[in-house]
Structures are given as C-alpha cells and as structure tokens.
C-alpha cells in the first residue's frame, strides 16, 4: 500500500512517500513505522507533498513536525492536497520570484 509519513503525533498533514492519485488508499506511518491511520486521497500529489489527515477549517493551524507551518487559507477536507493553494505563511508570504521556477 502507498505510504505517507507524519513527523509528530500532533501533525494534521502527512508527507507522501510516493506519488498519489485520487481514490488511492494511503497508509499513514509514524517515524517509528507504525501505521496510525489510512486516508483516501482526493487529489493527485507528487512525492514529498502533503495530504490532510483531518478536516482543517479556514484560518486553522496546519501542523507538521508538531509545529504550526502555516494557516489554512480555505476549508481543507481530509484527503485533500495541502500546499500553497490552501495554506498561507504567518512568517513570510511567497513572492513571485519564489514561485518563478515552479
């Protein structure tokens, strides 16, 4: 089964260890390789990108490494792709230049 990893038990997103497709069932593992839950994927996402493990309301914290990495800029559902289209930084907004190569 395809896998995604959480870095801390408080995380509400997991990082995909392989590319994912809508409809995939993904096993979420901890850093100790224990399976903590399975999630059904809603959107395609590449390796290294994040998937929501719970519903995250607009304005709520997005948590990875047990710490806040940003805020949801719209409502996010369990299984959604989580990236710059639905998360904003409190620390430093992305500039055009930072997006230049993507």
């Amino acid at each position, binding site marked *: 089964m395809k*896998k995604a*990893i959480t870095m801390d038990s408080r995380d509400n997103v997991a990082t995909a*260890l392989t590319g994912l497709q809508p409809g995939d069932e993904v096993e979420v593992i901890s850093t*100790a390789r224990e399976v903590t839950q399975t999630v059904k994927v809603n959107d395609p996402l590449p390796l290294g990108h994040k998937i929501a493990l719970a519903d995250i309301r607009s304005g709520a914290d997005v948590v990875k490494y047990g710490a806040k*990495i940003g805020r949801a800029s719209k409502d996010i559902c369990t299984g959604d792709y989580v*990236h*710059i289209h639905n998360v904003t930084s409190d*620390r430093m907004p992305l500039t055009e230049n*930072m997006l230049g190569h993507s």
Partner: protein
Amino acid sequence: MEFMGYERPDGKVGVRNTVLVIAVCDCGEPAAQQMVKGIEGAVAVTQYHGCIAIETVPTLVGVAVNPNIYGTVLVPMGCEGLRAQPIADAIAESGKPVEIVDIQAIGSTRGAIAKGRDIVQRMVSKAAKQQRKPFDIGKLAVAVKCGGSDTTSGIAANPAIGIMSDMMVDAGARVVMIEPIEAIGAEEELANRAVNDKVREDILHWVGDEEKRWTVPGAGVDFMCGGNVKGGLTTLEEKSLGAVHKSGHRPISGVLQATTDRVDRLPEQGGFYLMGGIHIELQAMTYQAAAGANIIVFATGRGGSFGHAIAPIVKVTGHPETWARMGEDMDVNASTIMEGTESIESVGKRIFDEVLAVASGKITKGEELGFYNFNVWRHDPRLEVLLGMEGGDKK
C-alpha cells in the same frame, strides 16, 4: 562510551592527526601547496579574502587549534597586513607545534618551499609516532549541517541526524549546528529548548541578527525558491522546521558567536550548541571546525562531492536515487525512510555508529577521494557597523 583518538597537549582529543599549512593570504597559496605536495597527512589551505582580511584571523587560529590538527606551518608572503606572528602566538597557546616560513624573509620562493617541506616532513614523522588511545565520547564534538537539500531532507536525512544528535548529547558529547538563516521561521521552536532565559535571548538574537543581515532594504534575498515549492515545501516555517530538525530535541546549552573579531570555541561541557556565522556549506563547516568540531555530519538530498581539510564529513542522503547514483560520495543511506522500510530512529542509530567509527579512524568517502576543501567566510565589518552590530552580534 569510547572512541580511539589522538591526545593533544591542551587535553583536547582529535580524530585525525593532520599537519596543517596555512598560507596567511592567498598570494602564498601556490607555495604552501608545494610544501605538502605528495606528503600524506599534510594539507595546505588559505583564506581567500586578501592580505588585509584581519576578520579571518580568529577562524585561522580556530582551525589550527582544532584537535584534529597535529601542528601548523604558517606561510606569510611577508608584506601582508594580516601578520603571521600574532596568529602563531595564539596557536602556540594550545601547546601544539607551530612554525612560520616567511617567503619574502627567506628571499627565494624555491628556498621557502624547500624549508616548508622540511618542516612538514618532520612534523608528519612525529605525528606518525603518536598512537590512538581510548577516550570518553565526552571529548568528541560533532557538527551538523545540510545542503543540496530537497524534499527528502526534511523528512529523512535531517530527522535521522536529529536522532544522532540526541544520542550524542545523551552520551555526553558536544553537538553544534550553524546556519542561523535556516532557522528563520523556526526560532520559537529552538528558543523553547533554551536551558535558561539568557540562552533563549541569545537564540532570538542569533536568528534576528542574521535576518537583518539578509533583508537589507533594496538588497534582500529570498529565503525560499521555486525548487522548494515544487518539491512540496509550502511555507518558510515548514522549510526551516525541516532544516533545524537535524538539531534533535535536547535542550540548547548555548549560542557561540562567529563575528568580525571572534570565533567562540565549544565549551568542554557536553550538550547541544548553536553557532552564528554563515549557512554556505564550506565556509560554515570551517566555522564549525574553528569552534572545535571533530566530525561534520552532512545531510543532502541532491548529493555532494567534497571533503573538508580540518574535519571529516559523514554524508547522509535520504534520496534513493542519490544513494544509488552517488554512492561513491555518500557515507550513510537514509533513503530507507522514504521507502518506508526503516524507522528514523534506526537510521539515526546507524549514523551515530558511523560517526563513532569515523572518530576512531574509519575513512569517509570524501577522504577516500582525497578531497580536502577549505573556504572562509568574512563578515563585512562595514555592514556589521551599519546594521548596528559592530564587533558582531550585539547583546
């Protein structure tokens, strides 16, 4: 827990027994290189900022005093503003051998090379007679650094190195992380680990001062790039938290300064330390070596083919393709985390074991290739003053 190292007159312990030749300014570098050519156990380095770069002196003294170095030969051209004698005096405080070969005073480049080679040969012969002895791991100092990062760095190599850092601190060793710029956005996480309020303040200054240096109006730099976003990093916080993950989880015992007029050395006491300076790989590693680090543990996603003149580098990659393709450069495979076949804790333990083996003499991939890179960062004293950081990071 013990490793087999070389004892120095000042009580410190090295993991290598290198004779170091320093061309005090870059004009003397070719002569210095000739002094070590073909002599195993000797390396020649220089700082690349010209003959008045007095801001590099604390770094040059620091690397010569690093316990991996048996003895030092200073090679001044003779006319530089950066004088060799005070550097030699500062190095001599460690009790280790230090000599000066002044090219203009000798009056012949070939004569200076011959004299230098003679001294180097003599030091290398003496060094070769020294035997490794067992020492407590408390004598070991490990630096952590990352570069050539990709999406695997923050979830595989850096977290596994963080486990190694924790294991080192728990065993009584010292661990030091540099690159304050990488902590912008993760400063609270680090500050919360401070052993006391003073260190907490120092950590916030450590990040804040570096942010000031890189956000001068009209000359700012981006802290994230398109490649980061493409690789899956959404915010600066996420990028920074991944980078600082190699620091592990233990309390932070102190913040060392590396500024225009000082480079702090690691205290004797075990624990986890932060260090100011720079994030650019080789210059950062030189600062860490100047602070006394014996071994550098380096996380990379993309790979990297280099070594360091002062401290061996243990390279760790979390990327399966990098491990498969650049295996001749990589020391530890952390890509098993990406494949879901090994826990981060287990990889961290393997890194710990590798560092101890290298401390006792195991040759790293960079050493196998005979790579001994060296570069020095120079804080611009004018910028420091303009930013209100005269003499360095103001408290």
